[in-house]
């Protein structure tokens, strides 16, 4: 008899796939040390066999059913529909008001000019529509209450646990404001979040339908002693913002004018005066480089040269702390559907070009190229070369996903921004300070003639022969390892903006992440222009799979390359089968946020496979996941940070994280390198590399913060250092490992961001 089952049908495949998921999932939790059968356990088991429970259960059940039947007989159709009355009466201040009183105890009060309709009233609540004006609603606490309010395109469901809110709707401006005093509410509307926004007591929603702007904020009482203590604890625990928030597009490319709470700002100013200890007299023992002081502010220690942990919080879209915008699709346009020609490149490019030709609106956006669900085949590359254009799909998961399938020769599939360089104008101003330390924002020049506040400048820190000699990169390493030496050249180029000029001293917006040492050559400050650089571009909610011709060099396969772009974003993008990565942020990129992206490497994964490449400056990689890549993250040589990698997970047999050739100011914050079973694996390398490519020193003035890997190999390079705080895994090297027991926040980036812009800015980091 044939014992074999017939081969799986197509309909059975999902079940076998899920079966393997279950097997793998449960195999991780099987008890490795089973409890042997023991008399007590036998007794327990035997007791369970005693039959007294079943009759009790059955009797209880029957009693419950009988009780239920009685209730049903008495109230056969549930409670009656709500009744309500609408009254007009003067308010305590004398203004005439409309008041709706409902039989469940709820009241809705509206101004006389407010246009309010009761659309329906049921047993559990009523549905109201505000056509214009303001109201205050008090919804009585009642189980399974269902009250809802509609205003323009927004629909708000109110929780039945008792809700008090103020709502204002302007139909002309399409603006909505909701202040929730108690309870909670879920708001549906033209947001990126299909599931809607959930607002809790004490929070305020401001939204505008015309341009998709919205923001959720929390009104805060004045900080007292108790709050400072709580803040200190919160920082130590570093609870990220619990609530998702999005800000609409802003009118310019400058950093958002978010008002800081200022609690630590004054102290920050006093810290910059060069004192060695920046706390408020409570420096913890163990000589830590950073800690949370008693007032909840971050304290930093400077070394004798003045170097300290730099502020990384400027990384990300619009200099950090600003949620990515949601740009609505023009109502007159429809998503593009996949074609039948076997190549959709031209159709998508034509749509991009059409949107690129539109004038920008007041927010600086031209529009959205929206791709519909399905698989688009690309035989060429797409080019997004105009400011204010967003390429959006329907998501990277599920049946409605938008999938870009790249075929043909291996290449970069999506190019964003021109491949251009900034133009430096005029003669550079020489930095005259003998030593400008890491973390500094102020230094003296030989002259400030021609410089003004708000000028965009580059600070160039050269790679001189003397410095290369000092760090040992002026001569080849072992012939088989590092066959060439580093070359003398421009070195690091930091883009900054002048925020103050005082005589010959200038102050810049973002701290330097490499020291400027006069003994190794003159650093210079020059004004620059970058007319070709584009801004406000985004790629979102897509998946892409590479099925490149295996005869081509598959190592060229990359999904998106971001070149001369400022204030751009990549979010909710998934890729499969690309050897060189999901995204590469190139040197001319600035203030780019890449968030919620998943890279899945080809199988078998080649040794050079990389998930993400982080170059440019002040860029943020947030919640990225690499599956199977040999290198979870790569950087370019001479990357002039700060750049931040936050909440990265690299899964693989031995994932590596290896910055390249003097990557300055890289923060690895809550990075996890794990094997498929979730155990720490792989290695974070910040030391001189004499391996197969022999690239030399990797990272400088970089930070590992509360991260996990099989091994951390971190050295302090000559003339610089690398800090490690909270490394879970084997640690080797002479890097600046924090051995203190000082309290420190869970996430450095979040703590610095909250300190600079206020706690509300953390909402920008939520999903």
């Amino acid at each position, binding site marked *: 008899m044939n014992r074999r089952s017939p081969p799986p049908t197509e309909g059975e495949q999902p079940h*076998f796939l899920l079966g393997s998921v279950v097997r793998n999932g449960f195999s991780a939790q099987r008890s490795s040390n089973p409890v042997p059968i023991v008399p007590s356990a036998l007794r327990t088991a035997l007791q369970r066999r005693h039959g007294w429970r079943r009759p009790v259960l059955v009797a*209880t059940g029957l009693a419950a059913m009988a009780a239920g039947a009685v209730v049903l007989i008495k109230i056969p159709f549930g409670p009656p529909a709500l009744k309500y009355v609408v009254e007009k009466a003067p308010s305590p201040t004398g203004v005439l008001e409309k008041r709706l009183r409902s039989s469940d105890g709820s009241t809705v009060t509206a101004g006389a000019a407010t246009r309010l309709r009761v659309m329906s009233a049921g047993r559990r609540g009523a549905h109201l529509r505000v056509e214009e004006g303001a109201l205050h609603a008090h919804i009585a606490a009642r189980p399974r209450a269902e009250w809802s309010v509609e205003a323009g395109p927004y629909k708000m469901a109110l929780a039945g646990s008792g809700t008090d809110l103020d709502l204002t709707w302007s139909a002309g401006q399409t603006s909505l404001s909701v202040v929730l005093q108690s309870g909670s509410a879920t708001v549906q509307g033209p947001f990126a979040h299909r599931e809607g926004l959930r607002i809790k007591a004490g929070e305020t929603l401001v939204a505008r339908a015309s341009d998709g702007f919205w923001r959720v904020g929390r009104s805060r009482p004045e900080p007292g002693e108790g709050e400072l203590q709580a803040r200190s604890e919160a920082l130590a625990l570093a609870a990220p913002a619990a609530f998702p928030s999005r800000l609409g597009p802003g009118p310019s490319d400058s950093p958002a004018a978010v008002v800081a709470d200022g609690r630590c700002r004054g102290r920050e100013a006093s810290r910059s005066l060069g004192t060695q200890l920046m706390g408020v007299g409570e420096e913890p023992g163990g000589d830590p480089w950073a800690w949370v002081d008693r007032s909840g502010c971050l304290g930093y220690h400077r070394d004798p040269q003045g170097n300290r942990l730099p502020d990384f919080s400027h990384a990300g879209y619009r200099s950090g702390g600003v949620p990515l915008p949601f740009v609505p699709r023009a109502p007159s346009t429809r998503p593009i559907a996949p074609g039948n020609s076997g190549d959709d490149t031209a159709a998508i490019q034509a749509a991009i070009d059409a949107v690129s030709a539109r004038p920008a609106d007041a927010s600086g956006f031209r529009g959205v190229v929206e791709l519909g669900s399905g698989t688009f085949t690309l035989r060429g590359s797409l080019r997004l070369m105009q400011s204010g254009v967003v390429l959006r799909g329907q998501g990277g998961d*599920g049946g409605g996903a938008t999938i870009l399938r790249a075929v043909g020769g291996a290449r970069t599939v999506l190019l964003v921004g021109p491949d251009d360089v900034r133009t430096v104008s005029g003669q550079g101003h020489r930095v005259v300070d003998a030593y400008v330390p890491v973390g500094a924002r102020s230094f003296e020049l030989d002259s400030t003639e021609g410089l003004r506040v708000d000028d965009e400048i580059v600070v160039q820190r050269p790679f001189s022969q003397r410095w290369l000699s000092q760090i040992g990169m002026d001569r080849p390493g072992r012939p088989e390892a590092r066959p060439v030496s580093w070359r003398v050249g421009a070195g690091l180029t930091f883009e900054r903006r002048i925020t103050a000029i005082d005589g010959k001293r200038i102050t810049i917006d973002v701290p330097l992440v490499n020291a400027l040492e006069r003994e190794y050559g003159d650093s210079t400050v020059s004004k620059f222009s970058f007319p070709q650089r584009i801004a406000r571009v985004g790629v979102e909610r897509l998946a892409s799979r590479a099925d490149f011709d295996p005869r081509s060099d598959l190592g060229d396969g990359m999904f998106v390359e971001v070149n001369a772009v400022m204030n751009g974003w990549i979010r909710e993008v998934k890729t499969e089968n690309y050897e060189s990565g999901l995204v590469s942020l190139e040197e001319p990129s600035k203030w780019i946020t890449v968030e919620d992206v998943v890279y899945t490497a080809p199988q078998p994964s080649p040794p050079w496979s990389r998930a993400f490449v982080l170059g440019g400056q002040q860029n943020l990689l947030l919640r990225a996941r690499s599956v199977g890549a040999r290198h979870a993250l790569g950087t370019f040589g001479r990357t002039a940070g700060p750049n931040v990698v936050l909440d990265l997970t690299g899964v693989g047999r031995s994932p590596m994280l290896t910055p390249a050739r003097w990557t300055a100011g890289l923060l690895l914050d809550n990075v996890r390198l794990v094997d498929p079973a979730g155990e720490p694996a792989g290695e974070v390398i910040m030391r001189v590399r004499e391996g197969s490519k022999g690239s030399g020193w990797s990272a400088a003035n970089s930070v590992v913060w509360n991260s996990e890997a099989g091994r951390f190999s971190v050295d302090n390079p000559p003339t610089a250092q690398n800090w490690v705080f909270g490394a879970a895994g084997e640690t080797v090297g002479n890097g600046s490992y924090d051995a203190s027991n000082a309290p420190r926040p869970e996430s450095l980036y979040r703590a610095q961001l909250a300190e600079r812009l206020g706690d509300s800015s953390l909402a920008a980091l939520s999903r």
Partner: protein
Amino acid sequence: LSADDDVFLARSLIEGRSEAALSAWRRFHPLVETTLRRMLGPGGDLQDLTQEVFLRFFSKVGELKKVESLRPFVMAIAIRRAQEEIKRRRVRRWFAPLLGDTIMGNTTTEMDPETREAIVHLYRVIDRLNVMDRTIYVLRYIEGLEQAQISDALGVSVSTVRRRLDRLAKRVNHMMSRDPVLAEYVGPRAASSLARAERGRSDR
């Protein structure tokens, strides 16, 4: 060798040798626990149930007709006990508010979140099947048994198993397509996901 060991062990158990019980426990404990876990899904403590399965096994092993079928015999007891537990949990779910307890414990935190979510949602779906259909589903797609093995374990004909599986695949497919997490598995990417999962498994 393993089958020979099982035969030797079965004979020792039937003869009532004291050391055989401990050997049987050591050998079949993982099998029983895995079967129970896969049948019942995430949550809940299996230790008591595992003990009960072994109690039954020790009390019934004298009835074993074919000594070479020791392993299927253990598994059949585990399946039967799991079926009873499924029924018991359904009753308790009805009366949970009266009894003041929760039916499902917390799911494990050892899995990665995606796996955990998929498993929880899958068991939520197959919870809606009757006990026999659920058993057949688990044995075929999660345990990976052949149809003939399922027929032996449950004492039904192979054609019954086949017929039920045909119906089950369609029905569960439909339920999965309406589940936000499981819909991905029945979508157009299911084939590539399957291939990926297979590759991932071979990596390990």
